[in-house]
């Protein structure tokens, strides 16, 4: 179950790409990751995420104004929060990853990533979903509740170490709602 994805990473790309360069010009440091199928992929520190997003969304030259999806990935040693950004007008595409090392996560708590929901409504439900399924806590989210599972569900099903505590179909416990 816990094999690592992308076992043979291709050679590291040389310099930053278009968006990486743009962010670098505005003083935000990024790390370029291997392109995922031809789309520029960068890693960014959680603290700079919101500022970077505001820049990318607002600037006329990049104008990545379409947040396609926010996904959570439980990778081998990190929790990734992956943002797919597109542009309505230009043909730009960008994938941003915020990685939280599993060793940095406090025992018994969830990995923390800043929320975008306050200034980008599209992120609202996607972040709730990622919180629900992968268990990444987006701090600053206005209404971070479970969205697909019931409110009292235990655990986060898309974690690699997820064990279902209650067999929902054969739950004979008295007083159980399931």
């Amino acid at each position, binding site marked *: 179950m816990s094999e690592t994805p992308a076992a043979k990473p291709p050679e590291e790309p040389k310099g930053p790409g278009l968006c990486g360069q743009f962010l670098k010009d505005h003083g935000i440091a990024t790390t370029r990751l291997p392109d*995922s199928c031809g*789309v520029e992929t960068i890693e960014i520190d959680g603290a700079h995420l919101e500022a970077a997003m505001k820049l990318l969304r607002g600037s006329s030259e990049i104008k990545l104004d379409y947040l396609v999806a926010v*996904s959570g990935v439980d990778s081998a040693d990190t929790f990734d929060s992956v943002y*797919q950004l597109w542009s*309505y007008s230009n043909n730009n595409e960008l994938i941003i990853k915020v990685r939280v090392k599993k060793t940095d996560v406090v025992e018994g708590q969830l990995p923390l990533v800043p929320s975008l929901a306050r200034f980008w*409504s599209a992120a609202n439900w996607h972040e709730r979903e990622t919180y629900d399924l992968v268990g990444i806590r987006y701090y600053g989210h206005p209404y971070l509740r479970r969205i697909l599972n019931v409110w009292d569900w235990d655990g986060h*099903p898309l974690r690699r170490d997820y064990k279902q505590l209650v067999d929902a179909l054969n739950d004979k416990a008295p007083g159980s709602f399931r």
Partner: protein
Amino acid sequence: MATDTEVDLTPRLKTDEMLINMGPQHPATHGVLRLILTLDGEIVRHTEPILGHLHRAQEWQGQNRTWFQYQALIDRVDYLSGMFTSWAMARAAEVVDGCEVPERAEYLRVMVSEMNRITSHLLWLGTYLIDLGAMFGFPFYPFREREKLLELFEEIAGQRMMFNYIRIGGVMRNPKDAWLSKLKKFTEEFPDRVDEYEAIVTENPIFLKRTKGVGILRKELGMDYGITGPSIRASGVNIDLRRTKPYSVYPKLKFDVPVNDRDGDTFDRYIFRIREMRQSNEIIKQCLDMLPQGEISGKKQIAGLRVKAGEGFAAVESPRGTLGCYIISNGSDRAYRIKWRNPSFCNLSILPELLKNHPIADVMAIFGSIDVILPDVDR
């Protein structure tokens, strides 16, 4: 201390806002959506959608079933347009895997998907009129045409809704000549049928009264929420992946994407879906003329189907909007992570904004007009 001269001016009647639970067993919520509406009289002040009544853990299935097994499951993600969910995953897997898709397969994919777009819009048309209260009359007419297409699907895929026809690397089966001629006949008579619908609906005064100026979706708001599909094109944003990020053989086909020039209301969303049906019909016609001979699959369809390691995102333009699939593969026979970007899920998130300050009768008119399908929301 109260004296006799003091008058109690607080109102005696309770005029609180009323909480009302719409769904999950409500007849018009298209499945099992629950809306908690805060009503002031009959005016909706606040809406909270509660999702997940139909959650089937499709993403979890994706990382616990082999690719070959999962292909058959994903038609259920959006059961009204199963071709598109298949196609989105097949595209993502092909992008990651790097395998070639034969041209004939691409044409067949476009053809069946556009057919599926028509069936989906037809069903939407019928149910939308039911939402507006045309309970028993007209709604069944779209089903007449849908039935014909479903029969064609049955012939080519063996199934009427869960097709499992588009596979990673190609399509499942070659159509017979008889099938193609039946489809041709359908495309010839279909525009007349659409005229028929338009004659009875588009100029119906009650329909116009119910839809014009109701649920106006501002362009900026829609872009902020990431709305896609006909709903946002009716509000003037030109995002149709078939044109803006062309895939498959769409660049070779001639068709226009209808885009509105103002903020759209529910009537615009209706009329743009109607136009899209006509466009799809044209696309099918062209595909029938241009269909080349050749292989139909670039990858061997075996139970041990594997996708090379890597990650990628691919999207198709489904009847409801951008249907994306984000795949991380580690080269084994099953995915490491599959994330669905469902148009219904994203489009539904704008519902609270659209419903604000509309009467309760418009809840269904607006909810129906953004064309949400609940299995697609809940996965």
